[in-house]
């Protein structure tokens, strides 16, 4: 037994040594692996661990407000109260919803959505129950808080437009960022990736978006494997968006909207003739910009899109209209500048002129008789302008039109502006492939045919005529950045190269339109001394009048279907002495310019002059401190 055991013991000892050696080798392997992971590759794993642990959350800055020139808010951020439900804080989600449903109504489909979201997300993720709660509901929930475990009230910010549809075209609206927006943004602003973030989609909101948007802040959060936030590691506040001050005077803007409201479709623009600052820019019908912020239903959207009155179009900058007789100043200046007509030259109007086989009618069937320049503008005699347009030619008329801002974008700080059309013979040849016809010059001479302008362009044209400078329209007066107000400098407009005498003659003609008894807008004059305006009516024909109709009887506007009625236009500047403001009013299918457009323009202009912050004392147009309170 002992010997046997001894040999077994020897074998056992030898093999134990082998086993021990093997174990040491395997432990060595473990140590080597530790060295590899914890020393050689440590850097990489440290980074991965930080990636795991740290979540960077983008903090949206408050959007800047939009103010009128006196500081009245046009677009603001409203506190938006939301009810959230955090599932882990309540023992019974359904019971909590039932209790809440007795305080604020929760429709069945909403309730199903909430329960679905709760199921899909982790317990600690808040789920929105309802948004945009009024104070009444908020306080009711707060009072019952002990019976509502898991219910939290959260305050966010949402954009609000106190004027609603009245300011829609001017200010535009904000909405969620689309994929297209992200692609177009080259700054790769992290805010655009933020769910629920909204950017300007049209109007001033779009044009000034970068100023209003501000800079994102960020917060580094430590999260666990489930994504639950454990604590905030660091926080960098963002930079709030700048407030944008517009040149708009809300009082006049409101008045303009008020005056246009009963018209189906119309636009008006009031401008400062010296600075180019737009005082009012109105377009009806509008749409509710607040609805865009909260999201439209498909039905609402289709209704807006299919509306023949195009409520989404800002007609002041995007609506194209034949200027009609408001174009006659340009024709007159072209003719005077090129010496084809003298101010005292007289043309006999017998109601029509003939060119070849065609007959061109004056609006006054039996003619005006002998007309000189002043009388032709005063009574808007078409025959006179057929004659001088024929003499000066389309190309020179178009060149004059361009000098006064027509046929090209004015460059106003609004999106979707259209350039209109100043036709030339070269344009027609290139575009339509046929030569320019002389008859077309005659038609262009009274602002019909190919000529197309926007209401803003007409206001710019009138401003340039009144000031003699190539003013450009703009909307942004200044910004308030971190509490510091800064006025944006507008480069001084250059003088228009035109003989002062030519301008003076045309302006005298406009004065006659409004302030002499035979003037087409005499009834729509401003009687208050010192406030007088000088204007020009326009009635743009929409449907060609057939020979048959002319021979039997021309239907009055009101007797025709709305779509076939004439556009009513009026442009004016005021005061007659030292002009300060220009206005253009277009009422689509409104009828006669003198009857429909001129009274509207008169009322708006009168109010503009009365509200002039400088009160004629200070040419800059900036409010004095003591007058700030006077704003409406």
């Amino acid at each position: 037994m002992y010997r046997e055991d001894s040999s077994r013991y020897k074998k056992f000892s030898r093999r134990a040594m082998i086993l021990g050696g093997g174990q040491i080798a395997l432990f060595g392997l473990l140590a080597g692996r530790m060295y590899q992971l914890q020393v050689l590759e440590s850097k990489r794993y440290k980074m991965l661990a930080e990636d795991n642990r740290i979540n960077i959350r983008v903090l949206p800055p408050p959007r800047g407000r939009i103010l009128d020139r006196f500081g009245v808010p046009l677009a603001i951020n409203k506190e938006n109260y939301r009810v959230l439900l955090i599932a882990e804080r309540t023992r019974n989600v359904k019971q909590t919803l039932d209790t809440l449903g007795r305080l604020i109504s929760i429709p069945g489909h909403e309730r199903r959505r909430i329960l679905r979201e709760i199921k899909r997300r982790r317990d600690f993720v808040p789920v929105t129950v309802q948004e945009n709660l009024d104070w009444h509901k908020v306080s009711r929930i707060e009072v019952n808080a002990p019976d509502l475990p898991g219910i939290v009230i959260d305050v966010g910010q949402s954009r609000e437009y106190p004027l609603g549809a009245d300011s829609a075209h001017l200010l535009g609206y904000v909405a969620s960022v689309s994929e297209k927006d992200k692609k177009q943004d080259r700054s790769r602003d992290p805010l655009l990736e933020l769910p629920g973030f909204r950017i300007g989609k049209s109007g001033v909101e779009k044009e000034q978006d970068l100023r209003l948007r501000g800079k994102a802040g960020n917060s580094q959060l430590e999260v666990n494997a489930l994504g639950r936030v454990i604590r905030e590691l660091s926080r960098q506040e963002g930079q709030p968006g700048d407030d944008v001050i517009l040149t708009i005077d809300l009082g006049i803007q409101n008045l303009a909207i008020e005056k246009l409201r009963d018209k189906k479709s119309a636009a008006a623009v009031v401008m400062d003739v010296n600075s180019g600052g737009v005082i009012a820019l109105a377009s009806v019908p509008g749409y509710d910009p607040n609805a865009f912020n909260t999201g439209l239903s498909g039905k609402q959207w289709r209704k807006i899109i299919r509306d023949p009155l195009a409520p989404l179009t800002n007609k002041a900058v995007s609506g194209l209209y034949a200027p009609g007789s408001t174009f006659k100043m340009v024709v007159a200046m072209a003719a005077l500048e090129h010496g084809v007509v003298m101010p005292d030259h007289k043309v006999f109007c017998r109601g029509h002129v003939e060119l070849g086989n065609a007959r061109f009618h004056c609006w006054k069937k039996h003619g005006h008789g002998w007309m000189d320049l002043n009388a032709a503008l005063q009574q808007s005699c078409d025959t006179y302008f057929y004659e001088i347009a024929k003499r000066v030619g389309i190309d020179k008329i178009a060149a004059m039109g361009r000098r006064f801002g027509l046929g090209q974008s004015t460059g106003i700080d609004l999106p979707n502006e259209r350039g209109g059309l100043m036709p030339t013979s070269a344009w027609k040849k290139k575009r339509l492939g046929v030569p320019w016809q002389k008859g077309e010059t005659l038609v262009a001479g009274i602002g019909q045919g190919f000529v197309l302008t926007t209401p803003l362009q007409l206001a710019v044209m009138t401003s340039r005529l009144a000031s003699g400078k190539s003013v450009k329209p703009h909307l942004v007066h200044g910004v308030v950045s971190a509490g510091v107000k800064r006025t944006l400098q507008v480069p001084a407009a250059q003088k228009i190269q035109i003989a002062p005498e030519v301008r003076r003659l045309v302006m005298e003609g406009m004065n006659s339109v409004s302030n002499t008894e035979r003037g087409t807008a005499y009834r729509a004059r401003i009687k208050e001394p010192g406030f007088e305006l000088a204007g020009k009516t326009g009635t743009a024909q929409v449907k060609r009048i057939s020979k048959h109709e002319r021979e039997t009887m021309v239907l009055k506007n009101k007797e025709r279907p709305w779509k076939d009625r004439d556009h009513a236009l009026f442009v004016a500047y005021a005061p007659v002495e030292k002009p300060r403001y220009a206005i253009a009013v277009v009422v689509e299918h409104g009828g006669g310019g003198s009857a429909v457009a001129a009274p509207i323009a008169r009322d708006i202009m009168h109010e503009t002059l009365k509200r002039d912050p400088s009160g004629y004392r200070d040419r800059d147009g900036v409010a004095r401190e003591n007058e700030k309170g006077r704003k409406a």
Partner: protein
Amino acid sequence: MRIGAADRGPMTIGQKLWQVNWSLVSFIIVLTGIGCAMLYSAGDANWNPWAKRQLIRFGIGLFLMIMVAVTDIRMWMRHAYTLYFLVLGLLVAVEVMGVIGMGAQRWIDLGVIQLQPSEIMKITLVLALARFFHGASLEDIGRPMFLIIPLLLVAAPVVLVLRQPDLGTAIMLTMTAGVIFFLAGVRAWKFGVVIGAILAAMPVAWTLLHEYQKKRILTFLNPESDPLGAGYHIMQSKIALGSGGIFGKGYLGGTQSHLNFLPEKQTDFIFTMLAEEFGMAGGLLLLGIYAIVLIYGFAIALRVHNQFGRLITLGITGTFFFYVFINIAMVMGLVPVVGVPLPLVSYGGTAMLSLMIGFGFILCSYVHRDVRVGRHGSGGED
């Protein structure tokens, strides 16, 4: 004849207690202490839910260990087969319960404690094999037919455990048995034959594996292939280890562990947590203490004068080694995730108790190192 304690007559309990290798016990206590410290950290600086219960179980384990150590080794040898078949019966019982319809189970609920027979089998298999080889001469062992019985002793529990299915324990049992076969003197070429046979059987075994086991092996081979599924565990464990660096993130400061990126940090992945908080330095220190415990095992085995005691000492030391190696290799992505705890450190009742009983047998061998053990566990010569 050898002069030893046994020759001076049977030892009293007091003498036996005096003979217990208390320095080994102290290292066991140190390891458990480290374990409790990590469990305290895993519980987010709280004794609940793990550290306190682990400590209580350790207390029970310590008591059982001493009880086993002072019991006469010949008594253990006499009852080695009885214990083996008792535990085998429990394994069958677990299997039957599963069949009856209580679902796949590894546990027997005794009310007070949930008993996991497969854990205890790790010890009783060692006892049974040690008893078998104790009475075998080298000539006996040289005969291939002689090995059929011990192979059946191994195969029975391995098959039952595989059916549970518990691949980790099956591997542990097989390897522990291999160690005893090797130490008993089975020729090396026979191991070659068995390993060859296993390799040949691999494709067949693959088809028998459960889907989740297959997936584990596949993701082990390429953890990045499934970063959100099973590969997630390995990936997060490697991130935790690697980000720990040389000196770690500090006690209670492991971000991966405390933010729950690390799965099962209180059981299988506790080494990862330790290495994240104490870095490579802490990992190597723990590895060093394990090495010391292993060295104790070898030193004791070489001093024991009976084959039964030697075989159980190195058999259990081998089991202990496999626990340590497989667990640490697993969390470092060296072997597939098979679910083997880190001995004395991981949270778990049965594993702790069976390990403590195992150490009890090592101490028992040491206490009775000079006792003569007969062929069937009798005290005298045969």
